């Protein structure tokens, strides 16, 4: 069975500082990995995804993530955050060989960007 652990439930950071949101996954098979952002009272927006190929994935809004198979991690980074990045961030994993549409999500990391 797959599982996702987001290592930090809350990450406070000052505006223009760099940030890293950590995600570890557990899976016995190959994986697809995703990061989503959720603003208050809204649905999920896809930030970026790893399906195959290059381990460094670039997404929208200046975010990027690196797939590390040996450490089973998929950490999300941004070199300089803005107030508007304040939101809930979710890491998710799915099995491309059986059912990519059944994603397992972590419990989320609340990113708060302070002025």
């Amino acid at each position, binding site marked *: 069975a797959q599982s996702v652990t987001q290592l930090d439930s809350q990450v406070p950071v000052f505006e223009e500082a760099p940030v890293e949101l950590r995600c570890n996954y557990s899976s016995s098979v190959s994986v697809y990995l995703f990061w*989503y952002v959720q603003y208050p009272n809204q649905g999920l927006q896809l930030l970026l995804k790893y399906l195959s190929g290059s381990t460094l994935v670039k997404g929208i809004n200046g975010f990027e993530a690196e797939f590390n198979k040996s450490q089973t991690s998929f950490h999300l980074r941004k070199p300089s955050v803005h107030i508007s990045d304040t939101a809930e961030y979710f890491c998710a994993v799915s099995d491309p060989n059986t059912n990519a549409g059944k994603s397992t999500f972590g419990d989320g990391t609340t990113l708060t960007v302070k002025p």
Partner: protein
Amino acid sequence: DAGVTQSPTHLIKTRGQQVTLRCSPISGHKSVSWYQQVLGQGPQFIFQYYEKEERGRGNFPDRFSARQFPNYSSELNVNALLLGDSALYLCASSLDPYKTQYFGPGTRLLVL
């Protein structure tokens, strides 16, 4: 292009009642998945449908059921509502079960 749409946006029900939530996928998408997101947690997989057939089911009781129509829209039904069913219900669509999902804005259900 229009994204995934869900209706209604908000719903209030009382315990024991039944509820139907609706989802329209992105045009051309034939796969629809449903997720439940309880406050403070990540979404949990409920169902996936593809070409009108159930392709996957999460660990939810039989009170939860769903179906997909010929136009690929979908309904999620929940019977005998419990207080614990209060959550944001998210619908996601994809071209097929092996492609990236795109989420709708969700339906927020409150059970009193």
